[in-house]
């Protein structure tokens, strides 16, 4: 087999993105600018849409309205001072951002994390995942025009989780909790009991949420078959997280990388077979259920002990020269931090691999040929946070 034949044989469909819709020249092309001041672009995000009637024939995403120079700022401040900035990346899930950054720095400096701190990280990370997924579903249905009812239900539960966050970390959203080699403060037994209470109430809530939405005919009509993302394209574009799993690809960094202590927990990875918005919505819902299972196990087994590596230093932290890439399965996908140290107190190079941005790159492929009303739906199903997209 020649090389070109091999290429043809192995080239998956959607490899070089054939134009799904050809402009046939007879329809009038309507160009509209959706955003940055638009109720359902989830922030200051703009899309240049080309419409033929109501059918999308072109979509150009424009980001950067929320660019805050995060990566460059990080090169000018100490490793510790970067931590609160990571809260502001994906401001819905600050704890997983903390975790990913802490993981990268721990790799760089060779710090160990005490067992109790690992458990706390898992608990906080999974709580974050639950609240993010429920919120994302709520926003998705809000984009469909349900007057925000599911969103309000999701936020009602999220509130309980955020209260626990505040009790432990001092802040509801900008937690700034994890440190290199552990966690900032220890959890009290009362806090753990509070989390147990919240987790005990979650399955009932997810059931309620599902009853409201899962078999709703309008929702099915809107989402099933909409915004199909083929697995080949998803892999090639570097899509990760629930989006990738909804496209049927079994890739979960918790299972792949065995970071933290995820090996100790039994949980499954839900996969979608139809690759559409409904699958993304359901995969998130099912993942939230799995997260609840992890939480139950973690809360049962959490050991005592310190939460900080005694070797870790707060002041004058200078990792040896080298580089490290730490990544975790954040609620939105693979969140990675790439750090280069020159031995000084600041990172020499600091780079974020934001899942939102990379998942957003396939927006046009999913939206071409769809109705303009579906664009907001597809964007909602990507689950972006502009703080992370633009950094």
């Amino acid at each position: 087999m020649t090389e070109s034949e091999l290429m043809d044989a192995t080239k998956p469909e959607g490899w070089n993105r054939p134009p799904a819709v050809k402009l046939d020249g007879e329809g009038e092309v309507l160009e509209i600018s959706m955003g940055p001041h638009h109720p359902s672009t989830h922030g200051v995000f703009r899309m240049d849409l080309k419409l033929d009637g109501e059918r999308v024939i072109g979509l150009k995403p424009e980001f950067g309205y929320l660019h805050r120079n995060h990566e460059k700022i990080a090169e000018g401040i100490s490793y510790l001072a970067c931590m609160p900035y990571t809260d502001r990346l994906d401001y819905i899930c600050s704890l997983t951002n903390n975790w990913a950054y802490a993981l990268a720095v721990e790799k760089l400096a060779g710090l160990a994390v005490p067992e109790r701190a690992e458990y706390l990280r898992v608990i906080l990370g999974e709580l974050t995942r639950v609240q993010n997924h429920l919120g994302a579903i709520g926003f998705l249905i809000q984009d469909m025009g349900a007057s925000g009812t599911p969103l309000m239900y999701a936020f009602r539960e999220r509130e309980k989780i955020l209260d626990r966050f505040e009790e432990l970390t001092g802040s509801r959203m900008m937690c700034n909790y994890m440190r290199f080699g552990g966690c900032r403060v220890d959890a009290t037994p009362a806090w753990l009991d509070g989390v147990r209470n919240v987790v005990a109430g979650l399955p009932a809530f997810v059931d309620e949420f599902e009853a409201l939405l899962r078999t709703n005919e309008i929702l099915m009509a809107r989402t099933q078959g909409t915004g199909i993302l083929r697995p080949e394209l998803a892999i090639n574009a570097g899509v990760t997280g629930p989006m990738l799993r909804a496209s049927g690809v079994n890739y979960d960094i918790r299972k792949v990388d065995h970071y933290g202590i995820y090996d100790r927990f039994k949980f499954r990875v839900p996969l979608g077979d139809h690759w559409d918005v409904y699958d993304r919505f359901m995969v998130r819902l099912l993942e939230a259920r799995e997260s609840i299972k992890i939480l139950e196990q973690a809360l049962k087994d959490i050991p005592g002990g310190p939460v900080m590596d005694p070797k870790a230093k707060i002041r004058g932290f200078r990792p040896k020269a080298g580089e490290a890439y730490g990544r975790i399965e954040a609620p939105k996908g693979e969140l990675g931090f790439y750090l280069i140290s020159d031995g000084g107190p600041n990172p020499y190079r600091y780079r974020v691999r934001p899942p939102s941005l990379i998942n957003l790159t396939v927006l046009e492929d999913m939206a071409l040929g769809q109705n303009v009303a579906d664009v907001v739906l597809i964007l909602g199903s990507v689950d972006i946070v502009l703080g992370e997209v633009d950094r």
Partner: protein
Amino acid sequence: MLGEGILKGLAETARNFVGSYFSAERLTTVQYPEQRIAPIEATRDFPFLVYDGADWEAGLRCVACQICEKECPPKCIYIEKSTGKKPDALGKPQFYPARFDIDISVCMSCQICVEVCPFEAIKMDTEFELSTTDRFGGLLYDRKELAKSNEHYHKIHPTEAAAVDAHLAGEKAKADAKTKAAAAAATAKAAASAAPPAGGGA
């Protein structure tokens, strides 16, 4: 069957509608100015400077070491070191902040300044109703506005403040012991140095 899911959804909202009248679990809204959420101890908002005793200027624990200024991620702290020194709680002569400004509008409540402070001098407040009509000056706090008593600290973060006080008391005791020992040694030495001639004299 078509319409089944819609009816299920309608039943769900109806249940929530009725439930919101009976269950506090569902209707979680807090009517803010009249009602308030019970204060959570760990809550942090903006930093303040702790002082001991009655006089805020004399009692400030801050020694203007400028670590927090350096570590502050958004660089919202501005410190000017004093030219002279004055004794701190331990009696050691220390610099003190001639100027200590925090721009609250820039501060991101990250608590890094608290973590890095070796002198337990800066802590996080829980005051969040800080609205002002002056956009620039109104949120730039100088050291007088920042200074709050240790009692205030005890009121908002009792557990943490108790630990800090114990730690400080330990340090002070250590320092006292040290000074006492030093003083004793000095007196002993003085006595010793004085004694021989005295002895010699005797």
